[in-house]
Protein backbone atom coordinates (compact mmCIF):
# COMPACT_ATOMS: atom_id res chain seq x y z
CA UNK A 1 0.00 0.00 0.00
CA UNK A 2 2.94 2.33 0.40
CA UNK A 3 3.39 1.75 -3.32
CA UNK A 4 0.09 3.47 -4.00
CA UNK A 5 1.07 6.46 -1.86
CA UNK A 6 4.39 6.67 -3.72
CA UNK A 7 2.63 6.73 -7.06
CA UNK A 8 0.05 9.30 -6.00
CA UNK A 9 2.62 11.62 -4.44
CA UNK A 10 4.72 11.42 -7.59
CA UNK A 11 1.68 12.26 -9.71
CA UNK A 12 0.84 15.14 -7.38
CA UNK A 13 4.35 16.52 -7.76
CA UNK A 14 4.15 16.23 -11.55
CA UNK A 15 0.77 17.93 -11.64
CA UNK A 16 1.93 20.75 -9.39
CA UNK A 17 5.00 21.28 -11.54
CA UNK A 18 2.85 21.50 -14.64
CA UNK A 19 0.27 23.80 -13.10
CA UNK A 20 2.89 26.30 -11.98
CA UNK A 21 5.14 26.20 -15.01
CA UNK A 22 3.20 25.84 -18.22
CA UNK A 23 2.41 28.83 -20.37
CA UNK A 24 -0.55 27.46 -22.25
CA UNK A 25 -3.86 27.67 -20.38
CA UNK A 26 -5.14 24.26 -21.52
CA UNK A 27 -1.90 22.66 -20.33
CA UNK A 28 -2.51 24.19 -16.90
CA UNK A 29 -6.00 22.65 -16.82
CA UNK A 30 -4.45 19.30 -17.73
CA UNK A 31 -2.00 19.59 -14.83
CA UNK A 32 -4.80 20.46 -12.41
CA UNK A 33 -6.74 17.41 -13.53
CA UNK A 34 -3.65 15.25 -13.01
CA UNK A 35 -3.48 16.46 -9.41
CA UNK A 36 -7.18 15.75 -8.88
CA UNK A 37 -6.81 12.24 -10.24
CA UNK A 38 -3.87 11.58 -7.94
CA UNK A 39 -5.97 12.63 -4.94
CA UNK A 40 -8.88 10.44 -6.07
CA UNK A 41 -6.58 7.45 -6.42
CA UNK A 42 -5.41 8.01 -2.88
CA UNK A 43 -8.99 8.17 -1.62
CA UNK A 44 -10.01 4.92 -3.28
CA UNK A 45 -6.88 3.14 -2.07
CA UNK A 46 -7.37 4.18 1.54
CA UNK A 47 -11.04 3.26 1.43
CA UNK A 48 -9.96 -0.25 0.50
CA UNK A 49 -7.58 -0.23 3.47
CA UNK A 50 -9.81 0.71 6.33
CA UNK A 51 -13.47 -0.15 5.88
CA UNK A 52 -14.19 -1.66 2.46
CA UNK A 53 -17.87 -2.19 3.31
CA UNK A 54 -18.58 1.47 3.88
CA UNK A 55 -17.20 2.52 0.50
CA UNK A 56 -16.73 6.06 1.74
CA UNK A 57 -13.60 6.61 -0.30
CA UNK A 58 -15.26 5.40 -3.47
CA UNK A 59 -18.27 7.65 -2.96
CA UNK A 60 -15.92 10.55 -2.31
CA UNK A 61 -13.94 9.70 -5.43
CA UNK A 62 -17.10 9.51 -7.58
CA UNK A 63 -18.28 12.90 -6.40
CA UNK A 64 -14.78 14.32 -6.80
CA UNK A 65 -14.74 13.06 -10.40
CA UNK A 66 -18.00 14.92 -10.99
CA UNK A 67 -16.61 18.09 -9.40
CA UNK A 68 -13.39 17.76 -11.41
CA UNK A 69 -15.38 17.49 -14.62
CA UNK A 70 -17.28 20.68 -13.69
CA UNK A 71 -14.01 22.42 -13.01
CA UNK A 72 -12.57 21.38 -16.34
CA UNK A 73 -15.71 22.44 -18.19
CA UNK A 74 -15.90 25.88 -16.63
CA UNK A 75 -12.14 26.37 -16.96
CA UNK A 76 -12.13 25.50 -20.64
CA UNK A 77 -15.16 27.71 -21.30
CA UNK A 78 -13.27 30.56 -19.67
CA UNK A 79 -10.24 29.79 -21.81
CA UNK A 80 -12.37 30.04 -24.94
CA UNK A 81 -13.80 33.35 -23.77
CA UNK A 82 -10.30 34.65 -23.00
CA UNK A 83 -9.08 33.53 -26.41
CA UNK A 84 -11.91 35.38 -28.03
CA UNK A 85 -11.03 38.53 -26.12
CA UNK A 86 -7.23 38.55 -26.21
CA UNK A 87 -6.45 36.40 -29.23
CA UNK A 88 -4.02 34.26 -27.26
CA UNK A 89 -4.02 31.58 -24.58
CA UNK A 90 -0.44 32.21 -23.54
CA UNK A 91 -0.67 32.96 -19.83
CA UNK A 92 2.46 35.08 -19.80
CA UNK A 93 0.88 37.53 -22.20
CA UNK A 94 -2.43 37.92 -20.37
CA UNK A 95 -1.10 40.43 -17.86
CA UNK A 96 -3.45 43.43 -17.90
CA UNK A 97 -3.89 43.25 -14.13
CA UNK A 98 -0.18 43.37 -13.47
CA UNK A 99 0.63 46.46 -11.39
Amino acid sequence: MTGVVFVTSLLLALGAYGALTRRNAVAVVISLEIMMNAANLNLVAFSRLHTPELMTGQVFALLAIAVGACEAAVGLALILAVYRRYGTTDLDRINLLRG
Partner: protein
Amino acid sequence: MSIPAPADILFWFFAAAAVGGAAYAVTSAHLIRSILAFGAFLTAVAGEYYLLAAEFVALVQIFVYVGGVLVLMLFALMLSTPGESQPSSLGRWSPAVGVTAVGVGAAIMIAAWHTPLPVVKEPAAGRLDHLGQALLGDHVVVFELVGVLLFAAVVTALVAVRGERR
Protein backbone atom coordinates in the same frame (compact mmCIF):
# COMPACT_ATOMS: atom_id res chain seq x y z
CA MET B 1 12.56 -13.90 -4.91
CA SER B 2 9.30 -15.47 -5.94
CA ILE B 3 7.38 -14.45 -9.01
CA PRO B 4 5.22 -11.47 -8.03
CA ALA B 5 1.50 -11.93 -8.20
CA PRO B 6 -0.09 -10.80 -11.46
CA ALA B 7 -2.04 -8.16 -9.57
CA ASP B 8 1.27 -6.64 -8.53
CA ILE B 9 2.69 -6.78 -12.04
CA LEU B 10 -0.42 -5.11 -13.40
CA PHE B 11 -0.33 -2.54 -10.62
CA TRP B 12 3.21 -1.48 -11.44
CA PHE B 13 2.46 -1.54 -15.16
CA PHE B 14 -0.46 0.83 -14.70
CA ALA B 15 1.53 2.93 -12.26
CA ALA B 16 4.38 3.27 -14.77
CA ALA B 17 1.92 4.15 -17.54
CA ALA B 18 0.26 6.76 -15.33
CA VAL B 19 3.52 8.37 -14.27
CA GLY B 20 4.91 8.25 -17.81
CA GLY B 21 1.77 9.76 -19.28
CA ALA B 22 1.63 12.51 -16.67
CA ALA B 23 5.33 13.30 -17.12
CA TYR B 24 4.95 13.58 -20.88
CA ALA B 25 1.77 15.62 -20.50
CA VAL B 26 3.36 18.26 -18.29
CA THR B 27 6.62 18.60 -20.19
CA SER B 28 5.72 18.27 -23.85
CA ALA B 29 5.60 21.39 -25.99
CA HIS B 30 3.43 19.71 -28.57
CA LEU B 31 -0.04 20.18 -27.09
CA ILE B 32 -1.98 17.52 -28.95
CA ARG B 33 0.53 14.90 -27.85
CA SER B 34 0.30 16.29 -24.35
CA ILE B 35 -3.45 15.70 -24.40
CA LEU B 36 -3.01 12.18 -25.77
CA ALA B 37 -0.54 11.43 -22.98
CA PHE B 38 -3.12 12.76 -20.54
CA GLY B 39 -5.60 10.31 -22.08
CA ALA B 40 -3.15 7.47 -21.46
CA PHE B 41 -2.73 8.69 -17.88
CA LEU B 42 -6.50 8.68 -17.30
CA THR B 43 -6.87 5.16 -18.69
CA ALA B 44 -3.99 3.91 -16.51
CA VAL B 45 -5.63 5.44 -13.44
CA ALA B 46 -8.89 3.72 -14.40
CA GLY B 47 -6.97 0.43 -14.53
CA GLU B 48 -5.61 1.12 -11.06
CA TYR B 49 -9.11 1.76 -9.76
CA TYR B 50 -10.17 -1.58 -11.20
CA LEU B 51 -7.27 -3.32 -9.45
CA LEU B 52 -8.30 -1.68 -6.16
CA ALA B 53 -11.71 -3.39 -6.47
CA ALA B 54 -13.48 -0.14 -7.39
CA GLU B 55 -14.91 -1.20 -10.74
CA PHE B 56 -17.70 1.34 -10.76
CA VAL B 57 -15.30 4.20 -10.15
CA ALA B 58 -13.03 2.86 -12.90
CA LEU B 59 -15.78 2.84 -15.48
CA VAL B 60 -17.10 6.23 -14.39
CA GLN B 61 -13.55 7.52 -14.78
CA ILE B 62 -13.47 6.28 -18.38
CA PHE B 63 -16.95 7.56 -19.08
CA VAL B 64 -16.46 11.03 -17.61
CA TYR B 65 -12.77 11.75 -17.97
CA VAL B 66 -11.74 9.93 -21.14
CA GLY B 67 -15.07 10.26 -22.93
CA GLY B 68 -15.91 13.75 -21.67
CA VAL B 69 -13.15 15.89 -20.24
CA LEU B 70 -10.54 14.70 -22.74
CA VAL B 71 -12.82 15.46 -25.68
CA LEU B 72 -13.61 18.84 -24.12
CA MET B 73 -9.91 19.62 -23.92
CA LEU B 74 -9.38 18.59 -27.52
CA PHE B 75 -12.20 20.85 -28.63
CA ALA B 76 -10.92 23.75 -26.53
CA LEU B 77 -7.40 23.28 -27.83
CA MET B 78 -8.45 23.09 -31.44
CA LEU B 79 -10.67 26.14 -31.19
CA SER B 80 -8.11 28.29 -29.40
CA THR B 81 -4.79 27.64 -31.05
CA PRO B 82 -3.71 29.58 -34.11
CA GLY B 83 -0.95 27.15 -35.09
CA GLU B 84 -0.37 23.48 -34.55
CA SER B 85 2.66 23.54 -32.26
CA GLN B 86 3.54 25.86 -29.47
CA PRO B 87 6.97 27.32 -28.75
CA SER B 88 8.77 26.00 -25.72
CA SER B 89 6.42 26.23 -22.84
CA LEU B 90 8.83 26.24 -19.93
CA GLY B 91 9.04 29.59 -18.19
CA ARG B 92 11.70 31.29 -16.10
CA TRP B 93 10.72 29.68 -12.85
CA SER B 94 10.84 26.05 -14.00
CA PRO B 95 13.93 24.91 -12.08
CA ALA B 96 12.73 26.39 -8.79
CA VAL B 97 9.25 24.95 -9.23
CA GLY B 98 10.72 21.60 -10.22
CA VAL B 99 12.86 21.41 -7.12
CA THR B 100 9.96 22.42 -4.89
CA ALA B 101 7.63 19.86 -6.46
CA VAL B 102 10.19 17.11 -6.10
CA GLY B 103 10.77 18.18 -2.50
CA VAL B 104 7.06 18.07 -1.61
CA GLY B 105 6.64 14.70 -3.33
CA ALA B 106 9.67 13.32 -1.52
CA ALA B 107 8.38 14.61 1.81
CA ILE B 108 5.08 12.80 1.30
CA MET B 109 6.87 9.63 0.29
CA ILE B 110 9.14 9.73 3.35
CA ALA B 111 6.12 10.29 5.58
CA ALA B 112 4.34 7.34 3.98
CA TRP B 113 7.41 5.14 4.39
CA HIS B 114 7.51 5.77 8.10
CA THR B 115 3.78 5.48 8.74
CA PRO B 116 2.56 2.00 9.58
CA LEU B 117 -0.23 1.46 7.06
CA PRO B 118 -2.78 -1.26 7.84
CA VAL B 119 -2.89 -4.49 5.89
CA VAL B 120 -5.03 -4.59 2.77
CA LYS B 121 -8.35 -6.28 3.42
CA GLU B 122 -10.36 -8.42 1.07
CA PRO B 123 -12.81 -6.46 -1.08
CA ALA B 124 -16.42 -6.65 0.04
CA ALA B 125 -18.61 -9.14 -1.80
CA GLY B 126 -21.72 -7.15 -2.67
CA ARG B 127 -19.68 -4.12 -3.67
CA LEU B 128 -22.11 -2.51 -6.05
CA ASP B 129 -24.99 -2.82 -3.61
CA HIS B 130 -22.93 -1.22 -0.86
CA LEU B 131 -21.86 1.57 -3.17
CA GLY B 132 -25.41 2.31 -4.23
CA GLN B 133 -26.66 2.27 -0.67
CA ALA B 134 -23.85 4.53 0.49
CA LEU B 135 -24.33 6.96 -2.35
CA LEU B 136 -28.08 7.29 -2.01
CA GLY B 137 -28.26 6.59 1.70
CA ASP B 138 -25.60 8.15 3.88
CA HIS B 139 -24.31 10.65 1.35
CA VAL B 140 -27.48 11.60 -0.47
CA VAL B 141 -27.24 15.28 0.47
CA VAL B 142 -23.78 15.64 -1.05
CA PHE B 143 -24.96 13.67 -4.07
CA GLU B 144 -27.80 16.10 -4.70
CA LEU B 145 -25.56 19.10 -4.11
CA VAL B 146 -23.12 17.81 -6.71
CA GLY B 147 -26.06 17.57 -9.09
CA VAL B 148 -26.82 21.24 -8.46
CA LEU B 149 -23.15 22.03 -8.97
CA LEU B 150 -23.16 20.24 -12.33
CA PHE B 151 -26.19 22.25 -13.38
CA ALA B 152 -24.48 25.48 -12.34
CA ALA B 153 -21.37 24.47 -14.26
CA VAL B 154 -23.36 23.82 -17.43
CA VAL B 155 -25.05 27.21 -17.21
CA THR B 156 -21.74 28.93 -16.45
CA ALA B 157 -20.00 27.30 -19.37
CA LEU B 158 -22.79 28.27 -21.75
CA VAL B 159 -22.78 31.87 -20.55
CA ALA B 160 -18.99 32.15 -20.65
CA VAL B 161 -18.79 30.86 -24.19
CA ARG B 162 -21.65 32.95 -25.50
CA GLY B 163 -19.89 36.16 -24.53
CA GLU B 164 -21.14 39.61 -25.30
CA ARG B 165 -22.90 38.86 -28.52
CA ARG B 166 -26.27 39.95 -27.23
